[in-house]
């Protein structure tokens, strides 16, 4: 029995994907919303268990490596294990929270929404585990198209505009990525991700252009500024589950894939400078534009999405450093953003249901205290207050940045934190110091446990900032495994 268990653990990547895709298929054919929800939760929890177990074994306990060849061009490395564990855990929590919306959805679309949600997680997980650039492309496309479908399934007609913009953006992103992959293949004769760092590069300029285009294609799907023209329209009118899938899983999934790709490309002398320049430009633009957009936002979901853009910008800046310390900082920052966004989106989902205006938060601290606590924890983490994960991520960037002489990166951190003070302070003020002016929608139809993820992610955003040893160890080990050529 233990032999089978070990065999299963050795093939954690493929089991993670199988659990998600099988869950999606079952949810799709499920006759009721509630059954689809339960199946979705079961599948996402199974995937989370597989991926977290693999990450803990390899990154924390230093146990046996993960199987390399599955016949599906899947190969795990440190960053993919770290990212998949974080993403699948978030996926399970999002699946649970989706109950707050699916309970109110029609019985026809409810199962589809759950199936698509699982496809989003499966797509980004597949992109993280793919050993080949084309595998990365396939995974990212599955996740993206599932996200587009989720937005299109929203009840409001305005959401279709968002879905259309996403479709156009996705097409542009796919074209950039494929063009970049073709250039890379032409330059080095392979699109294997693991081959990048040691490749004999015949045409360095061509290879660097290829990698730059591939990163830009992925950045477009991750919502990095200035390529995030689709974000406002998609987030502004989409349904609750679509917002959760895009804002929590889509953007952070994209960032993890970018960090992994960059971690493989940066060590190559001919590619390092180009990767660094592309990521630094995208990161700085995301920090500045995302912060400005978040400060000016009046729609709660857009505010959260733009805040996420700014935070992801910090992660991209970390990755731009190109050093193991920088990639470790990027993983910590991406994880911090994931926890903060999860707390914010799930807290809002439970507290105000489908409401979008910031006014909906007025007095919510009294009306829905637990959801209020989750949003407060998220806001504090987004501000970068000490003893939160948000502070930890930025501190690691400053530490790595100052070590590399990138003082301006510290400036970017300050910009993000200052913007966080403004929009985070505004959220807290509305929660606790305003009275509701009208009867607010409060997720009344939510099924029992749908509120649990908000509290779990809020606790993670604070407690892991207080005792981050395990997280830091895992992030350091993850980048070391990439530097060493994979586990």
């Amino acid at each position, binding site marked *: 029995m233990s032999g089978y268990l070990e065999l299963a653990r050795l093939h954690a990547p493929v089991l993670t994907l199988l659990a998600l895709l099988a869950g999606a298929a079952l949810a799709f054919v499920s006759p009721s919303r509630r059954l689809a929800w339960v199946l979705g939760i079961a599948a996402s929890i199974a995937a989370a268990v597989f991926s977290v177990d693999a990450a803990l074994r390899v990154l924390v306990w230093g146990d046996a490596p993960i199987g390399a060849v599955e016949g599906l061009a899947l190969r795990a490395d440190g960053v993919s294990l770290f990212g998949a564990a974080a993403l699948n855990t978030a996926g399970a929590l999002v699946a649970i929270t989706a109950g707050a919306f699916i309970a109110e959805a029609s019985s026809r679309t409810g199962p589809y929404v759950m199936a698509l949600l699982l496809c989003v997680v499966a797509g980004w997980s597949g992109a993280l585990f793919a050993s080949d650039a084309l595998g990365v492309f396939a995974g990212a496309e599955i996740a993206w198209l599932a996200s587009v479908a989720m937005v299109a399934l929203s009840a409001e007609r305005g959401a279709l505009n968002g879905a259309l913009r996403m479709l156009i953006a996705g097409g542009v992103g796919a074209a950039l990525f494929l063009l970049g992959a073709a250039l890379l293949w032409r330059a080095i004769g392979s699109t294997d991700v693991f081959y990048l760092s040691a490749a004999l590069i015949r045409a360095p300029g061509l290879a660097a252009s290829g990698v730059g285009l591939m990163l830009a294609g992925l950045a477009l799907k991750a919502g990095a500024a200035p390529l995030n023209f689709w974000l406002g329209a998609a987030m502004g009118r989409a349904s609750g589950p679509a917002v959760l899938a895009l804002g929590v899983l889509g953007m952070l999934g994209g960032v993890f894939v970018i960090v992994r790709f960059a971690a493989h490309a940066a060590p190559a002398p001919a590619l390092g400078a180009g990767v660094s320049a592309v990521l630094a430009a995208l990161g700085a633009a995301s920090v500045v534009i995302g912060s400005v957009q978040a400060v000016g936002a009046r729609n709660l979901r857009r505010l959260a999405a733009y805040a996420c853009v700014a935070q992801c910008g910090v992660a991209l800046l970390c990755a731009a450093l190109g050093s193991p310390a920088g990639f470790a900082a990027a993983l910590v920052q991406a994880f911090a953003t994931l926890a903060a966004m999860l707390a914010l989106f799930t807290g809002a989902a439970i507290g105000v249901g489908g409401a979008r205006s910031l006014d909906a938060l007025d007095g919510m601290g009294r009306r829905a205290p637990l959801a209020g606590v989750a949003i407060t924890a998220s806001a*504090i983490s987004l*501000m*970068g*207050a*000490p*003893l939160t994960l948000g*502070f*930890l991520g930025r*501190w690691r960037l*400053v530490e790595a940045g*100052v070590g590399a002489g990138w003082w301006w990166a*510290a400036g970017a951190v*300050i910009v993000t*934190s*200052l913007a966080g*003070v*403004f929009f985070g*302070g505004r959220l807290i*003020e509305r929660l*606790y*110091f*305003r*009275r509701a002016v009208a009867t607010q929608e409060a997720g009344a139809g939510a099924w029992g446990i749908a509120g649990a993820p908000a509290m779990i992610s809020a606790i993670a955003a604070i407690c892991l*900032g*207080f*005792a*981050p*040893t395990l997280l*830091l160890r895992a992030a350091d080990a993850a980048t070391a495994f990439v530097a060493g050529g994979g586990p």
Partner: protein
Amino acid sequence: MSAELALLIALGAPAAQTLLVLALARPPGLRDAVHVGMTLLTALACASLLSAAAHGEAVRLVLARPLPNVDLAFHVEPLGALMAAVLSGLGVLHALHTAGYARATHEKAPARQMAFIALANAATMAVAFSANLFTFFVAYQGLILAVFPLVAHRGDEDSRKAARAFLATLLTASVGLLLPAMVWTYAITSALEFQPGGVLAGRVDALTANVLLVLYVLGLAMAAMPPLHRWLAATSVADSPALVTIQALAVLPAGAIGLLKIAAYVFGPALHSESMDDATLASRGLILLAGVGMGGAALIALSRQDVRERLAYSAMAQILAVAIGVLLALPAGLFAAALQVVAFSCASATLLMAVGTTVAVTTRERVADYSGLGRIMPWTFAGFAVASASMIGLPPFAGAWSKLWLITASTGAGLVWAAGLVALAAILTFAHLGPLAVSALAGRAPTDAFKRPDGASILLAAPVVLGALATLALLLFADPLASYLAPMWTPRS
């Protein structure tokens, strides 16, 4: 009680008090007893730590290691122990006064108010006992977030606006200026520990030292250094108990403690030395800014007819005196600054509690309405007069000693103009507080003074009188305090 346990109680009791007061909100008697009792426990623990620091006991408490090589840690040293003892002692009087004020004004949410006062006290204790810059920054941010609900407590548009100004100014300054300074210090020294002699001493060039000093001093916006001082006047719309916390017991003192710790334990000789690798240029500029700010604040106070607003500007003038003492970078200046914090806290708490008592029993808030109130509230206005005299710096009250040391240190540093600015601010303070106290005591008694038929309760009057007595008692402690604080500016061998 061991010193470790006392430190744990000093930090933990106010935090536990927050929860207890909320949990035991009814009956009011139990709530008030818990509030006063826990504050007293904190004060006793701090008194024990004062004694431990006097005997040179080294106590350190590490709660966590949230960053590599950086602990969330607290330690007992003379400056922190003195400030914690004074502020927690005054906190007991404030707790009594808050209980009396809540009863007299039929406060709608007294438990919430008391809870956030306790939380602010917890953060202030953490500021005082912080062992390194990171812990100080955490406690400082915690204090901002704890006081924000106190400012907005009334819930009307004015108080919300004031709370927004408070939060925006202090958080922006701390994130935009104090945090970069901390990160820069870490980049230079790979350490954030507070240590006598300063972690930066001998490790920075003149340019870095000057820029860092400006970042630190302006980043500590709780010290109300212009131009980041507007939050102080804005928050004067808050309720009386919140004002005592903001001006006398938590926010302004925390800013002053921060200035002292950074001057003594981060800069040390890097603030001013013979080698010119120091921050002399920035410190002189900041002294000028603080001196002009002092005079300006005292002058503006003169023009304000709302008593609370007048006291806010008066408090600003007083706290800027601390900045001048700190920036002089001499032992005499640091001692003057420390003594000024102690004297200011006693006098300011007494004044604000007296104003709170007056509001609670007469609803009078205008300067013109104070005439003759001393004849019908003699104890309250006797305390008011003593505290005013100390704020002005009239000999032999405690405030006079700190001003005298400040003038001596300024002339000792060759900055006669700084001494002149301190003296000018004292004269202007006399002009805005002296006539007010005199008119209250000597004016004709109003015939319709009391809103409450039974006048001020003992809970409202006694803390004012005891605060005034504390101000008087400080007369005796100037010399012992000088020798007690000596380790602050003496590097460990």
